[in-house]
């Protein structure tokens, strides 16, 4: 007698539907598990046996049980196989279990010895994978219903125990069971922080017209940004407000981000789904694993992935270890991070706007103007510190700004009220809608992600600007890649102005943004009128 159930195995954020075939036959009494299970799955045997026994089902102790996980080449990991194995054993011995329905159902959940379910991380990406592979319904631990329900076209059953699953499948009365404890009872810190992050507003930032404009352009096109300036000049103040001006996540984006948190086990217990772009600010002493993802056993997404679709703020950038900086190259360029370990490649999305902040020297007090300079670092120390700013990340930063400390008179300005975050966000939204319209037949959404050849062929600037840009490249003022990056930023400037195509002004502005040169005052003001 045999039965097949289905579940999902994850490699990073990518899920594979796994068939669990259980054969119960006469022969030497033993339980064999084949198909590359990991330790957690091997242990499933013990949990399932106890769970069945304690739930009033019989574990066929006298029979030979073979459990096959296929396809065989996919490594399988995680305790959530428990439910599919247990139901497989029950179905193999019970003709009343509906075989056809089992083929269209994914079973997700870890079992306790008394037959109750436990939450598992990664339910959302599992549900997404299941739906893509023709699964119609899914059983998940009750607290994770909200997560699985995000996937369209799936009937989601939230269950508390093995008995409940069997009852539902057979169409019997559902027995009661104590509630399942959520994975994380406390909401994730950054989402608590969401409320407090709403408290920080660009309305509180006086002056800094230059930096504010640059941030707006970066937010429009998803460009990476480098803020440099003395300690206390307001780099962090600016950075922590950037996520606020990004538009709300759309349904697909929410799903992507929730999937990442589902994998990280950091979804809040109340089933709330993030609607705002994330802001992550890992410390420079964070481990490589925390930053990029990985970990022993299950591969977890790192900060770069948790910042997906939002802002990744790397404060005191020169203090980050060099190997970490090197490893950031891949997500910065491709929007994905692949963690290779043994035979397993785990892939996580990691497409964020990276904001890098640096002091001009280790003590942070250096100022190019003698009257403001309080730096006590030796020249050689300062030079070494700055040399760390070269390399793969800075090469991929499109906008560099020097942030001047706010002057007294800027704090007491009586003529202009700083624009609040909501106004900025509205403008960014409009500019992003223009991009969505322009790129609707393509895979990318933002200017920063448009491939160079496509940019040149389909979306050139006005001819004068194109030839000016070519001259810059020919004269060696820009590398070829730098030219493409300037072109992308010019589009963001144009989108902010509401132009059909980037003009000469847009190019000049994009160049100034890249070089950290002053911007034309008229340009900074022009967007206000538009």
């Amino acid at each position: 007698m045999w039965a097949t159930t289905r579940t999902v195995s994850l490699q990073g954020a990518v899920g594979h539907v796994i068939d669990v075939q259980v054969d119960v036959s006469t022969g030497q009494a033993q339980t064999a598990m084949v198909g590359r299970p990991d330790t957690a799955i091997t242990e499933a045997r013990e949990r399932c046996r106890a769970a069945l026994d304690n739930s009033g089902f019989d574990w066929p102790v006298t029979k030979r049980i073979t459990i096959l996980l296929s396809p065989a080449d996919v490594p399988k990991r995680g305790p959530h196989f428990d439910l599919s194995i247990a139901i497989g054993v029950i179905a193999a011995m019970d003709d009343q279990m509906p075989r056809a329905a089992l083929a269209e159902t994914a079973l997700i959940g870890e079992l306790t010895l008394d037959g109750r379910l436990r939450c598992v991380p990664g339910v959302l990406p599992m549900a997404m994978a299941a739906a893509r592979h023709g699964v119609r319904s899914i059983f998940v631990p009750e607290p994770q219903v909200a997560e699985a329900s995000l996937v369209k076209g799936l009937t989601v059953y939230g269950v508390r125990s093995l008995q409940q699953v069997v009852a539902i499948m057979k169409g019997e009365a559902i027995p009661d069971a104590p509630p399942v404890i959520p994975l994380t009872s406390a909401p994730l810190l950054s989402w608590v922080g969401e409320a407090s992050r709403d408290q920080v507003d660009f309305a509180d930032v006086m002056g800094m017209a230059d930096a504010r404009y640059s941030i707006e352009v970066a937010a429009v096109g998803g460009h990476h940004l480098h803020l440099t300036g003395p300690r206390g000049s307001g780099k962090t103040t600016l950075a922590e407000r950037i996520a606020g001006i990004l538009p709300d996540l759309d349904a697909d984006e929410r799903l992507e981000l929730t999937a990442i948190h589902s994998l990280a086990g950091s979804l809040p217990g109340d089933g709330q789904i993030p609607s705002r772009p994330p802001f992550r600010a890992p410390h420079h002493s964070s481990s490589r694993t925390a930053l990029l993802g990985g970990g022993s056993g299950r591969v977890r997404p790192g900060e770069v992935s948790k910042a997906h679709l939002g802002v990744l703020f790397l404060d005191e950038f020169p203090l980050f270890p060099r190997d970490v900086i090197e490893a950031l190259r891949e997500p910065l360029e491709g929007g994905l991070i692949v963690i290779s370990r043994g035979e397993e490649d785990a892939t996580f999305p990691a497409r964020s706007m990276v904001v890098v902040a640096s002091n001009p020297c280790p003590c942070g007090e250096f100022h190019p103007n003698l009257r403001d300079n309080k730096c006590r670092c030796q020249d050689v120390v300062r030079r070494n510190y700055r040399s760390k700013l070269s390399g793969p990340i800075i090469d991929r930063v499109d906008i560099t700004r020097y942030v001047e400390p706010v002057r007294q008179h800027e704090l007491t300005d009586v003529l202009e009220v700083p624009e609040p975050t909501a106004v900025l966000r509205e403008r960014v939204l409009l500019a992003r809608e223009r991009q969505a319209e322009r790129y609707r037949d393509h895979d990318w959404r933002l200017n920063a992600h448009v491939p160079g050849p496509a940019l040149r062929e389909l979306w050139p600037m006005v001819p004068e600007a194109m030839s000016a840009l070519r001259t810059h490249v020919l004269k060696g003022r820009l590398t070829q890649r730098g030219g493409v990056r300037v072109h992308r930023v010019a589009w963001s400037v144009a989108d902010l102005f509401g132009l059909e195509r980037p003009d000469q002004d847009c190019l000049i502005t994009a160049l100034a943004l890249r070089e950290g040169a002053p911007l034309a005052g008229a340009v900074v003001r022009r967007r206000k009128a538009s």
Partner: protein
Amino acid sequence: MADDERLARVTLSLIGEPGDAKLTSLVGRLGATRVLAGLRDQTDPELSADLGQRLAAARPEDELEHAARRGVRFVVPGDEEWPSGLDDLASGPTVDRRGGIPIGLWVRGPHRLNDLANRSVAIVGSRLGTTYGEAIASELGAGVAQAGHCVVSGGAIGIDYAAHRGALAVSGPTLAVLPCGLDQWYPKTHAPLFEKLASDWLVVSETPPGGVAYRTRFLSRNRLIAALTHGTVVVEAASKSGALSTANWAAGLGRPLMGVPGPVTSAVSEGVHEMIRFRNAALVTRSEEVLEMVGEAGQYALDFRRAQEDPRDRLSVDARQVLDAVPVQRAADATSIARVAGLRIPRVEELLEELHQAGFVVNREGRWHLDPG
């Protein structure tokens, strides 16, 4: 000034182009009453023909009353609040037929014009300035105004606005000289600035109420900005910028001319750099330096800025030479130090003792090395 002369000046202000050199010099020589009579009598048929239509329509009493209702007054030479600096225009240059002492000024605001103008600095620049220039203009405006000097500018977009803004931020004195009549604001987007200036400080114009900001009126307006102030600072101006016109007037009047440098690659700093190169404009980088240029002699004198002093700098040349020869850690005797230093042994011994006293070197059993502290 007699009432009929004042009224005649109002009439001439209403009918003449602001700063028309012919008119201002005539009024300077003959007085407004006689010039007006001459116009009516066709003494100069061309001038009478040019201004005839305007003269026929002029209603000076009505205009004065109308202006007064808007809080605008007409100030003429000899009035208590007439700023004496303007009188220098009598001997100043004429540019494109503009020049001379204004026939009168339309003024709005709670201060006396001479009070503000007596201690004042013009800060002007390009409408197409950069964020850098605007930041500096605000900083200079704030610094100058904080010291009690009035920041005079044209209220234009860009540098002018930034200069006024800086002064207002520190609640310091600032006034705008406009090319248009004071019943309107040019540029319109700066209405909040002008309202603030009119209510707290001053707005001034040579153009009567109702007059439009024509391009030709900017030139005569610039002459007033230069003449009202004790010096003109230009922050960012391209090679042919209008801001340079103010600088030219200032130079023509012998007033200090100052320029804030920018990157040599910046087109909007070119005019300033030329001013510094060819016109001997003083290069200024902060408000203290501006004040030093416009203040009474010695009032704002600045200390010469030095690099941080190294205690070694106080030593004699010989002593420094010996110090260079003393090993950092491995002690050496006086003989070998003398050889390295190229000085005679007794002199070196003497100097080593001095250096020891001063704490530069350490004596270890008759041998010397540098004090690590």
